[in-house]
């Protein structure tokens, strides 16, 4: 009897995850209703107009969607050489050695630093460098936020891909070595292709992180409500516009911000799904 109750409780707890997910979607969708009635889904996504003044109120998400994609993809691009190096360092060159453990711990600590501290560091330390590089006058913008974002996602991109690299079977590599291949040739022709889908999946997950990152980007991107004019320009991401404007919002504006949250939720969910599918393909191979 006691067991039955306990098992039932376990089941109820698991069911709660299902309810939680459904309730999250419901909360976001129902509160987006006003936006959809006003602009339609497509109209809201494709309009770059964001004007909160009550007389000429007009909301569209395009600038923020583009701002999010710009920063996240540029950050991903910037992080590749570093995270790939760390992954190869830990999973191939110094696999199982003490120094790999040290590097892994240090890089993992990067993941522990709160977003707001990254924001402060970006503002006070990286921004002057960006100004010195003459990217733009104030330093704020897509470039600055992408640089800081890239550092923030290095641990996510490198730890998983390092693990996949370390799982490449030794006999494959030894075969290549016995044929006279050098280490980098083994990496190039054996390790990287074998671990490819795992590495791709970890970069997709890192991209998901970058898309949803809020505080650091809010502090660094310049917060302008228009389509960012290239890397040097300022802008807003979906997450940063919510963080910036949620506090004073009500009515249609609140609904529009929640709709942006819904879109962000959908984008990250799709990204995670893709990563999952890529990894599933790996386990079948």
């Amino acid at each position, binding site marked *: 009897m006691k067991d039955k109750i306990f098992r039932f409780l376990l089941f109820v707890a698991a069911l709660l995850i299902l309810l939680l997910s459904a309730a999250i979607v419901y909360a976001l969708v129902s509160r987006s209703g006003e936006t959809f009635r006003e602009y339609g889904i497509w109209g809201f996504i494709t309009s770059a107009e964001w004007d909160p003044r009550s007389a000429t109120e007009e909301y569209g998400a395009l600038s923020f969607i583009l701002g999010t994609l710009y920063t996240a993809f540029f950050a991903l691009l910037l992080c590749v050489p570093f995270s790939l190096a760390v992954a190869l360092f830990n999973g191939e060159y110094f696999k199982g050695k003490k120094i790999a453990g040290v590097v892994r711990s240090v890089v993992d600590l990067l993941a522990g630093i709160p977003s*707001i501290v990254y924001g402060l560091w970006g503002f006070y330390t990286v921004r002057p460098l960006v100004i010195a590089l003459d990217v733009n006058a104030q330093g704020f913008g897509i470039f600055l936020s992408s640089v800081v974002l890239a550092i923030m996602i290095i641990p996510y991109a490198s730890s998983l891909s390092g693990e996949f690299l370390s799982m490449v079977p030794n006999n494959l590599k030894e075969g290549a070595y016995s044929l006279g291949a050098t280490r980098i040739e083994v990496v190039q022709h054996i390790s990287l292709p074998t671990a490819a889908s795992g590495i791709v999946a970890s970069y997709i997950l890192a991209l998901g992180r970058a898309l949803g990152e809020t505080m650091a980007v809010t502090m660094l991107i310049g917060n302008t409500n228009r389509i960012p004019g290239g890397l040097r320009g300022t802008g807003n991401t979906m997450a940063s516009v919510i963080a910036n404007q949620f506090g004073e919002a009500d009515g249609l504006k609140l609904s529009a911000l929640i709709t942006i949250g819904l879109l962000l939720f959908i984008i990250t969910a799709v990204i995670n799904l893709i990563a999952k599918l890529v990894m599933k393909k790996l386990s079948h191979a």
Partner: protein
Amino acid sequence: MSQVKPISFKSRKTKDKTAFILICLFSFLAMVPLFFIIWDVVAKGYKNFNLRLFTEVTPSSVDALMARMNGDPIPGGILNGITGSVLIVGLAILISVPLGLFIGIYLSDNRGKKFAKVISYLTDLLQGMPSIVIGIIAYAWVVKPLGGYSALAGSVALSIMMLPMIVRSTEETLKMLPASYKEAGLALGSSYTNVVFKILLPSGFGGIFTGVLLAISRVMGETAPLMLTALGASVVNWKITEPTSAIPLLIWDFYNDPNLVDLIWSSSLLLLIVIFLLNWIAKIVARKWKI
């Protein structure tokens, strides 16, 4: 298959060496920001890192301005943020840990079942959810119905963030336990409930506790969801239905108020110390109670 073109041995050697050096160099460069960040926070924060930080609440902007004009250090500390963080995170632990444990036990025990697979996928989905979206959810669920910002709303947001991490660590830990543990317990006539509470959870304690500590350290520095839920307060508040501050929320306030800017770094230093301490304890626990 890619064809290896005939290249001179010497150039292959050079390429190999260059690649090795580049990999070491870029790995090193990837670690550099951590030291710069820590250096920045310590060098700028240690001056204001004193007892006052722990015993006094945030000063008003005017008081801080007066002190600055007189060349005095900023009066006050971040007591309201420290107590707020304890309250909000503590409550989030109370919500998420029991639930996470139960769900983790369920998933590890029902591997392969369709329902468990769905739950497992949704857990991943929740884990990947941006924290700001979780803030919106807690706003819609708690702030709106209660008619105001509150510590409870903040805790709900943080517990949604912690839940998937605790589920995962519980599930992974229990999966690693030898099946014989459970079988031996059941064979001796012990009930399933007893097997879980007297054998599985104690044996997996290290892994589960590590997971909980890491989840706490992850939400300790969360700012965005708290901005939409707990809002902040300039006094010490222990009521869960009232707006409450937290250390990261105060850092955000200080960042936006030129008069209080000096407190940014000491608060960040405290936050980093707490987070790294939690990470360190988690590491020790994981090593000590290794399965």
